[in-house]
């Protein structure tokens, strides 16, 4: 067997995220151009593989077999892989795992991983119907579980009751992420700011969540290049960012299969994280910067716990201590995360990968000093599956 190669992320870019007057394929093209701006000289002919991650293409855009549509619009002619991938909110993060395996095995050399969603079509209210189909339609959805806030509100209440987490501590997450994300011009809420007072006095979405505890549902696309170390060196002079380890763990599709003692424990994330750390040859202490799935403020708090950045139950005081800010123990969601940059489901994982790539290359907008190891995480469904990728400036030796 041929010797295993190393896979790296070369760079990437996103379209403008938000409520967009554009089709899903329009936005994929915008993301591809942003990716090429980040990797000067990148041409369609350099790319031998394509993975497009999307969930809503088909329901909100008539684009079910999405990969050939992207091939045509981007002028690609893939020879190694050409697929659509759907794991809802973890779509393009899952695609990174697939791309890593294909590059390391020598099957592919240069893969474009792109994620995209167009949700607000044809009418805005219809997204609430579609949400019934992305959960377990015949069971939890038929109970009325559609948009996520009510479910995550129950998670927050249980975490508050069991561990004493407060609304103020949750507000620290949204304020920190706004401090980061206000400088992201392509973010859904780029340019906006948030104070603690505004966060705590916002209108209630689902008790205990105010408006700023919840991420928006966004239209948008992102694109990154995953390549072999050899090809990456030819494409860029920047430091290489290696894909060191991955983990993906799913336990159920509907509530009866929830693996925790209560909703405040996410043991399936712990397993995904430990798997990724083991494959990366690292521990949580080694990670310098993280992009975790902050669909709600409570999510980021629980993720910091289950990923081992603080003790279980101490996520609230941890975020309030400034640990997730620049200079803190684990700067998190340094581009604004889902809360501010926005959340076009399939596009979010690649958006996180772009930020970690920039951090480890020393060129992020909110740079973590000497960042050597980074982590991305997505949850998907009703917190049914967890996807973790660990990056580093050196490959696993």
């Amino acid at each position, binding site marked *: 067997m041929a010797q295993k190669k190393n896979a790296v992320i070369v760079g990437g870019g996103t379209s403008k995220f938000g409520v967009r007057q554009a089709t899903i394929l329009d936005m994929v093209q915008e993301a591809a151009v942003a990716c090429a701006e980040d990797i000067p000289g990148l041409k369609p002919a350099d790319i031998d593989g394509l993975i497009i991650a999307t969930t809503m293409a088909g*329901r909100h855009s008539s684009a079910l077999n999405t990969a050939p549509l992207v091939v045509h619009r981007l002028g690609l002619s893939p020879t190694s892989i050409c697929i659509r991938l759907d794991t809802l909110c973890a779509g393009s993060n899952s695609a990174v795992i697939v791309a890593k395996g294909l590059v390391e095995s020598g099957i592919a050399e240069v893969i474009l991983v792109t994620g995209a969603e167009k949700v607000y079509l*044809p*009418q805005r*209210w*219809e997204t*609430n*119907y*579609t*949400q*019934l*189909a992305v959960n*377990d*339609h*015949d*069971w*939890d*959805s*038929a*109970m*009325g*579980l*559609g*948009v996520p*806030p*009510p*479910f995550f*509100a*129950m998670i927050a*209440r*249980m975490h508050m009751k069991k561990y004493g987490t407060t609304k103020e501590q949750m507000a620290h997450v949204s304020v920190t992420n706004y401090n980061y994300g206000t400088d992201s011009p392509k973010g859904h809420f780029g340019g906006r700011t948030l104070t603690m007072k505004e966060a705590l006095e916002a209108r209630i*979405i*689902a*008790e205990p969540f105010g408006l700023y505890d919840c991420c928006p549902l966004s239209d948008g696309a992102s694109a990154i290049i995953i390549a072999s170390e050899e090809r990456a060196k030819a494409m860029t002079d920047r430091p290489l960012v290696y894909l060191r380890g991955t983990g993906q763990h799913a336990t159920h599709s*509907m*509530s*009866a299969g*929830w693996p925790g003692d*209560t*909703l405040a424990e996410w043991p399936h994330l712990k397993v995904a994280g430990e798997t990724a750390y083991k494959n990366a040859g690292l521990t949580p202490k080694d990670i310098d910067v993280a992009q975790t799935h902050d669909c709600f403020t409570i999510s980021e708090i629980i993720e910091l716990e289950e990923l081992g950045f603080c003790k279980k139950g101490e996520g609230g005081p941890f975020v309030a201590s400034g640990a997730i800010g620049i200079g803190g123990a684990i700067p998190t969601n340094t581009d604004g995360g889902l809360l501010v940059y926005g959340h076009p489901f399939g596009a979010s994982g690649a958006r996180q990968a772009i930020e970690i790539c920039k951090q480890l290359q020393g060129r992020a907008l909110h740079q973590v000093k000497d960042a050597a190891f980074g982590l991305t995480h997505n949850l998907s469904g009703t917190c049914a599956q967890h996807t973790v990728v660990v990056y580093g400036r050196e490959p696993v030796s």
Partner: protein
Amino acid sequence: MSDYETANIVGTPHLEGTYVSEMDMWPFEAQELNRIYPFYDNLRAGRFTTTKCRDCGHIAFPPQVICPKCWSENLEWVDLPKKAKVVAITETQAGAPLGFPPPLIMAWLTFGEGTPLKHLLGRLVNCKEGEVKEGDEVQFVSFEVPAHPMEIKRDVKECKRVYYAFEPVKK
């Protein structure tokens, strides 16, 4: 085309109030459309049931065609507990899926030690907002939901449907 012009309904006008299946919010319950139809027949009889594996004894929920533990097809129908305790509750006024009139009340339910169903997200009905509190007991209830047309060979038949939720136990 006068109906088209005057129809005062939300959504795609020419569907005249009915919706394509991908936007339907209830399961395809008819015997012709799925293999776990006894679950729905049992709902009509007021029973809350699921499948148990005759080979390994595992009780799955939702009911299945095979046992998820040992992949045996040798299954039987068993009854589930009909009373549960509310651990956490959430009441949605705005943003509930269409067809679920607000307040949409959902709860995280536990079924007690030794029961095959450990916990479940359940909708609460027959109660007002604020009426049910954490720690309260609720009970299973079944009810009719909108019927759905289905194509069986060359005929279109109406699929009558039921579903279930939980309601307060009257003290």
